[in-house]
């Protein structure tokens, strides 16, 4: 199973762009990279998913280099409401044994 490593915490200010990088050195060929956001007292929710290069949606962008051993979640112009824990998740391609293991996540604190 691919293990992920993320910074434990990050601080930012409103209006700034935030980039959170996740390392996943032993990612499997068919694994996708998925990011989730979790607010207090809620379950995580899907933000963005990618396999290679760049993916963008209305919430974030995901940058994946050619070797796929890392990925960067980019949140443009964060607001106070983006304060949350962000999890990088890799895997799911291993058929019936493809359980998904979450890392410790990155706690993002957005300040006014």
């Amino acid at each position, binding site marked *: 199973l691919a293990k992920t490593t993320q910074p434990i915490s990050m601080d930012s200010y409103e209006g700034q762009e935030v980039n959170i990088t996740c390392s996943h050195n032993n990612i499997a060929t068919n694994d996708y990279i998925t990011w989730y956001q979790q607010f207090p007292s809620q379950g995580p929710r899907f933000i963005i998913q990618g396999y290679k290069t760049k993916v963008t949606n209305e919430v974030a962008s995901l940058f994946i280099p050619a070797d796929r051993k890392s990925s960067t979640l980019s949140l443009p112009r964060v607001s106070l409401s983006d304060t949350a824990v962000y999890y990088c998740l890799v*895997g799911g391609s291993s058929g019936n044994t493809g*359980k*998904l293991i979450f890392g410790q996540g990155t706690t993002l604190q957005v300040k006014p």
Partner: protein
Amino acid sequence: GAGVSQSPSNKVTEKGKDVELRCDPISGHTALYWYRQSLGQGLEFLIYFQGNSAPDKSGLPSDRFSAERTGGSVSTLTIQRTQQEDSAVYLCASSQRQGRGNEKLFFGSGTQLSVL
């Protein structure tokens, strides 16, 4: 339903009692996961069901924990002889797993278990 539903949302029990936590996944989702989250911590994998295959129980912390999924839909997580260290939020997630590595998990709001 529109999303993953978990019940109860809160459960307070006494040490040594058994508890049952329920998860109703999104209709049609073949995969179902249980995770545990202690205060301020990340998500700890417990068990994974996929279709009619034998579940992956490798994350269950002890034999006091068990789970079943009836008819490929509703799942129940049972904790016997609860201990104070079992206090945590228990999260359920489901996905429309297709084995292509691009599944997306949909989580319920969790059950907050407090063992006194």
